């Protein structure tokens, strides 16, 4: 009890500091006198100023169907990929209700969508507009939870009111307001008791406040929030493994440290207290940060279970729980790679498959769907994956504002 109080005090202090940092607008001019780069540029070397590496634009509109190059998408033999829904600017995180409604969150568009299938016809409804970075979605007991940048809200009885959604109930709004890595991924625990989400680090590479670079969970009964993991730079994809009920998550490596370092990673949370994945001191489990790693050792920290490649930007992941794909796919992990910006030759822009061995160790990583990247130009960016009731796999595309469906056989 005492520990909990201390923790929440620490949390409050950290938040106050972070908020102060955010609110202190007209600070005395350090620029002309100081050589310390602004927060957003920390960790860059001189060649990191190369204007060719400007971040990719934030997608705000959906591509018309005739600009979706579906026939460029490649799947393994026996599989088929088709356009499943479109016209949803910046469609990202997905969740499926027991009735089969797919809810879709966005980062830049401020919208939340519902995709419903009725009498064989699919319809996209925009159920919320003007939200602030509503990236996270989770569904339980007839209610849709949405994680905005600094609060979690809830739409009750949403499926009965898709054409006229109720005003949302504010569930929790004491979250930091930092824009960098402030958007959230949301995941309901298998027992339905907790909502898991991240508080990303508010920059590329800094020593974050104790509140940030964390995975948190909110107890839906008590509304108490607690830290479940630290040293996580930014995870925008989480799923619970069937059977073990462990949380597995992707984590984005830092930028400006090289074309091929450090790796983005796949991680496994084996306990809900005390795991630290190394940020900002150690990346990918075995690579000390050139600056923040000084005097530290990677042995202090928990390690990822797999390196996914540098700058591939892994977002959503799902364990394959369906019965439609061949048996070898059962229990595999699919990961959506949004694709690189901080690398001169682009990587990612694909959905990959991770195969685990009998000891639950990831042993193989291979492309599953490719083709969003043509040469050095991308036309789409996979943001999340969702195994739906019929056993097929949905892939959301945050760039094109569309969802594709991968099926096997038939």
């Amino acid at each position, binding site marked *: 009890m005492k520990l909990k109080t201390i923790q929440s005090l620490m949390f409050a202090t950290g938040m106050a500091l972070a908020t102060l940092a955010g609110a202190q607008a*007209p600070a005395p001019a350090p*620029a002309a006198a100081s050589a310390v780069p*602004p927060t957003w540029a920390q960790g860059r070397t001189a060649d990191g*100023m190369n204007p060719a590496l400007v971040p990719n634009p934030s997608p*705000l*509109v959906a591509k*018309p169907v005739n600009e979706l190059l579906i026939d460029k998408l490649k799947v393994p033999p026996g599989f088929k990929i088709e356009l499943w829904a479109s016209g949803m600017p910046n469609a990202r995180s997905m969740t499926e209700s027991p009735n089969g409604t797919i809810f879709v969150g966005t980062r830049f568009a401020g919208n939340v969508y519902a995709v419903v299938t009725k009498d064989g016809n699919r319809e996209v409804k925009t159920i919320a507009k003007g939200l602030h970075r509503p990236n996270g979605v989770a569904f339980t007991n007839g209610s849709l939870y949405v994680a905005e940048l600094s609060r979690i809200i809830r739409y009750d009885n949403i499926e009965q009111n898709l054409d006229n959604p109720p005003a949302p109930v504010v569930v929790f709004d004491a979250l930091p307001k930092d*824009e960098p890595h402030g958007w959230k991924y949301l995941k309901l625990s298998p027992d339905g008791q907790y909502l898991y989400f991240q508080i990303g680090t508010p920059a590329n590479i800094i020593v974050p406040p104790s509140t940030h670079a964390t995975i948190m969970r909110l107890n839906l009964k008590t509304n108490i929030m607690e830290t479940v993991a630290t040293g996580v730079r930014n995870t925008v994809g989480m799923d619970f493994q069937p059977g073990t009920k462990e949380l597995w998550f992707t984590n984005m490596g830092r930028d400006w440290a090289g074309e091929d370092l450090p790796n983005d990673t796949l991680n496994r949370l084996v306990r809900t207290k005390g795991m630290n994945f190394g940020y900002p001191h150690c990346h990918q489990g075995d690579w000390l940060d050139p600056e923040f790693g000084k005097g530290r050792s990677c042995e202090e920290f928990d390690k990822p279970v797999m390196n996914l490649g540098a700058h591939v930007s892994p977002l959503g992941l799902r364990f394959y729980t369906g019965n439609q794909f061949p048996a070898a796919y059962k229990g595999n992990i699919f990961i959506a790679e949004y694709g690189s910006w901080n690398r001169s030759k682009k990587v990612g822009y694909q959905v990959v498959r991770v195969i685990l061995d009998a000891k639950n160790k990831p042993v193989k990583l291979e492309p599953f769907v490719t083709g969003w990247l043509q*040469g*050095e130009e991308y036309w789409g960016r996979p943001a999340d994956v969702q195994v739906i009731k019929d056993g097929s796999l949905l892939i959301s595309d945050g760039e094109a504002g569309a969802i594709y469906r991968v099926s096997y056989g038939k």
Partner: protein
Amino acid sequence: MLLRNIKAIIAMAFFNIFGLISCQLLAAPDAVAGKTKSQTCFACHGADGIGVAPNIPNIAAQPPLSLFYQLVQFREGMRKGGGMETFSKNLSDDDIRDIAAYFSALPPPAPKMGDPVKVAVGQKITQQNYCNSCHAPQLQGQKQVPRLAGQSTEYAATQLRNIRSGARVDMDGTMGSAARGLSDEDIEALAAYAASLN
């Protein structure tokens, strides 16, 4: 170093080839149609894309993608100002692409040399804050990142103050973080430096 340059050239060549291909595949933005669709804009932004008053931005020679994004933000209510929410309300994505094609193809605004002391300070702050890493070496803008070169000093300073205070939308947090440490004097100096560039 040489290798890096060669790599960059090859990368650019690839970019151009694929850029051309995708332009041909997709509906190409039409600057001629864009001029017709831009008639309403001229009263304030001029047919030459030069604002008719100091509080109105020069939009000539802005990168087309940056114009596209600003107009979409106005249309979607994410950014407000100058009545642009109303003017953009009924524009389709294609309309906006055409309008952007028209204004981006115009000659850039003439540089305006202001107070040389301010300009020199502005140049120094630009370097220290790595503005060029996104806004390009001469602040001419690229992709979704706006041109600052030749911009009206009053407009540029107002926007930086609005980004600093959070009054203007900050898509990924970068500009908010970049503007947070700037004083009013820094902002005036940056605006003077940007205006002096071509």
